[in-house]
């Protein structure tokens, strides 16, 4: 949970784009379809190759096995989704906060004061990122070797504008002493 300071306001909060998650989904689709493919191959052989001798009602056993398999996949899918979509960037009028959820039990939160930001670079490459509006945002800060690079984030230009606008306001208020 990110705790904001008093009088600190969130300007924009963005997550990684859903399209990037599709590449993670493909593996789950393959694993979900695999038992059906194997069953259809076995059925197409007409039982000529190998006969399975299983005690009890085999249909019930297949239903049981399928529910175990799909339950495991279902839980694993949501674990993947959670680690993916908890990656977020929050731009406030005082800070930029980048939360990198590396796993369910590994989380890195990087914070930079808005007036220490030197440069923001946006990279949107390719037809699909351009069409769906996602890309890479790199934020260079004054600290040595400190750079946030966030891949596959939604609305990268909006993030850039928000950071630069917040920095302009921060610089202006600092120079006028307000």
């Amino acid at each position, binding site marked *: *949970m990110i705790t904001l300071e008093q009088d600190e306001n969130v300007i924009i909060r963005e*997550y990684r784009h859903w399209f990037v998650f599709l590449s993670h989904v493909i593996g789950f689709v393959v694993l979900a379809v695999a038992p059906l493919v194997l069953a259809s191959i076995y059925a197409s052989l007409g039982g000529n*190759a*190998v*006969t*399975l*001798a*299983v*005690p*009890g*009602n085999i249909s*019930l*056993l297949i*239903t*049981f096995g399928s*529910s*175990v398999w*799909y*339950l*495991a996949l*279902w*839980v694993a899918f*949501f*674990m993947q*989704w*959670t680690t993916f*979509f*908890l990656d*977020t960037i929050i731009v406030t009028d005082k800070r930029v906060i980048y*939360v990198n*959820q590396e796993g*369910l039990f590994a*989380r890195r939160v990087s914070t930079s004061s808005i007036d220490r930001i030197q440069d923001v670079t946006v990279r949107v490459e390719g037809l699909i990122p351009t069409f769906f509006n996602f890309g890479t945002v790199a934020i260079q800060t004054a600290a040595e070797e400190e750079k946030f690079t966030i891949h596959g984030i939604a609305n990268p230009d909006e993030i850039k504008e928000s950071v630069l606008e917040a920095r302009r306001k921060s610089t202006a208020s600092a120079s006028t002493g307000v």
Partner: protein
Amino acid sequence: MEPTVTFPSPLPSAISISMSPSLIWGIVALMVIVAGTMTLVLLYHWTKYGAGIARTIVIGGLYLAGTGLLLTTMLVSAAAYTASL
């Protein structure tokens, strides 16, 4: 006399799998423990770190509905199968 070698070696025409109620219920217990623990972990992440209230409600509802359906199917089919043994 030299031994006769046939290639390819013949595959078994039937595979016999033994099943017992204790094996079935052991798998059920394992899955209930794993799914229950992961559900608690996921709900903790969604409520503590959040991904927006609307998104959390939709995804959480979908997850719980799917998990409940699959757990029920697993329990019912396990009970019916062990009764058929």
